[in-house]
């Protein structure tokens, strides 16, 4: 019962935060310069190595798997297309987002959570500074911009690594791989994936901020919040992925 009530408490708090964030867009001018760049910098360069590694290996793995499933059914020349579509529509945005949720989402929750328990948030309010505009808005904006950028990097790496795997594991030379890829490419594949990535960026940053604000005092408070931020945003990402895929591609 208690957990049930808490769920709704957080849902309510989260909705209020969402509303206040949207309202704070009125003061967007104040964050466009320094704070936004700073956050974008932290988010992009903090996550890009992880994203590259993940993309590299998922490109390899998926190609080997496609070779295995498709053998005897699908002409291997189409590996490139199959993979590129998978990467752009699904793997690129979702895997990057899940990795980034662990990094950026947890980071935001920890940072804002520490500010909450050490009264830095109260201190902002005392100065007449809206903490949502000051802390959440630049992070959310940065997330919405940086996630698609990371996704493009991930997709590029995954496609390159898969073209290499295609050559070595299933004997499809690169020119055939890329020829097939070009033949069936539709821009919507790319755009749809990037729109997803933006939405995931929004989810990660707003959920991280929410858990930061909701952090309880005490030694374990911040730790709990970071875990909760990762778990909650991962769940929301998977859920939003489903909704968005249906909306964009059905």
């Amino acid at each position: 019962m208690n957990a049930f009530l808490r769920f709704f408490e957080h849902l309510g708090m989260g909705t209020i935060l969402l509303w206040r964030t949207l309202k704070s867009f009125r003061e967007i001018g104040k964050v466009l310069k320094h704070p936004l760049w700073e956050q974008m910098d932290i988010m992009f360069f903090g996550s890009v190595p992880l994203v590259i590694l993940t993309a590299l290996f998922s490109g390899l793995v998926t190609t080997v798997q496609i070779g295995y499933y498709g053998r005897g059914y699908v002409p291997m020349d189409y590996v490139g297309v199959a993979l590129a579509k998978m990467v752009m529509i699904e793997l690129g945005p979702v895997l990057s987002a899940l990795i980034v949720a662990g990094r950026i989402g947890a980071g935001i929750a920890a940072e804002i959570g520490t500010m909450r328990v050490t009264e830095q948030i109260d201190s902002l309010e005392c100065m007449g500074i809206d903490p949502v505009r000051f802390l959440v808005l630049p992070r959310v904006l940065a997330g919405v911009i940086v996630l698609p950028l990371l996704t493009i990097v991930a997709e590029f790496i995954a496609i390159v690594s898969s073209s290499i795997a295609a050559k070595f594991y299933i004997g499809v030379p690169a020119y055939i791989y890329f020829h097939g890829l070009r033949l069936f490419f539709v821009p919507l594949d790319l755009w749809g994936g990037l729109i997803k990535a933006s939405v995931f960026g929004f989810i990660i940053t707003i959920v991280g901020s929410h858990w930061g604000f909701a952090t309880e005092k005490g030694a374990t408070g911040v730790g709990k919040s970071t875990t909760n931020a990762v778990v909650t945003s991962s769940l929301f990402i998977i859920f939003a992925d489903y909704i968005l895929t249906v909306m964009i591609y059905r």
Partner: protein
Amino acid sequence: MIELIDVHKSFGKKQVLRGVNLRIPAGECLVILGRSGAGKSVLLKHIVGLIQPDRGRVIVEGVDINRIPESKLYKIRKNIGFVFQGSALFDSMSVFDNVALPLVEEGLLDESEIRRRVMEVLELVELQEALNLMPSELSGGMRKRVAIARALVAQPKYVLYDEPTTDIDPITSERINDLIIELNTDVGVTSVVVTHDIHSTLRIADRIVLLSGGIIKVDVKREHVWEVDDPEFQEFIKVFKMLKNIE
């Protein structure tokens, strides 16, 4: 003027304030005494609306701060400087940026003017050299002084100090007392000071109240402190009396 009328506040089952009535006229320097956990910090936070009362009203310059929209509350807060018990400096910003933030956010002054004002208040707390340090590089007492500088930088009409001299050596502590007095008498800043430090209390206060059992148990002008017969209050000033005798 700040006025608390019948303020009640509980956290869960724990009743912290049980009907606080307190009126702080403009220009006064009020000291709030009370044992650890008595609710002094909670009381102070009511004055800026960081905590809302369960019952009762908090009135600042004639406005009930819990019955106005947030944007108006933010305006009122700009007249109030608040020194947090734990300093609450922004970890990610240098000392300079911490102190400058209220002015930068206000956006009324240009960069050189902001710089001048920041240096001025840092000088008041004798921390000009710490300008470029990060909060993590400061001692507890230095952090407290930066917090004081930050509370003063926007030239507020009211300053609320939550234990300004705790963690601070006696010499610096004396400077801070002087600073509080100076701001109060020369600039006319209304000051509310929470402290355990009875020596500084007797130096700076126009009036002293004791918060105990969730109410204002003693409320006395500075010149009448020796006439109070409340045992808890006497306990507070006893140490000072003993020291006086040694001298």
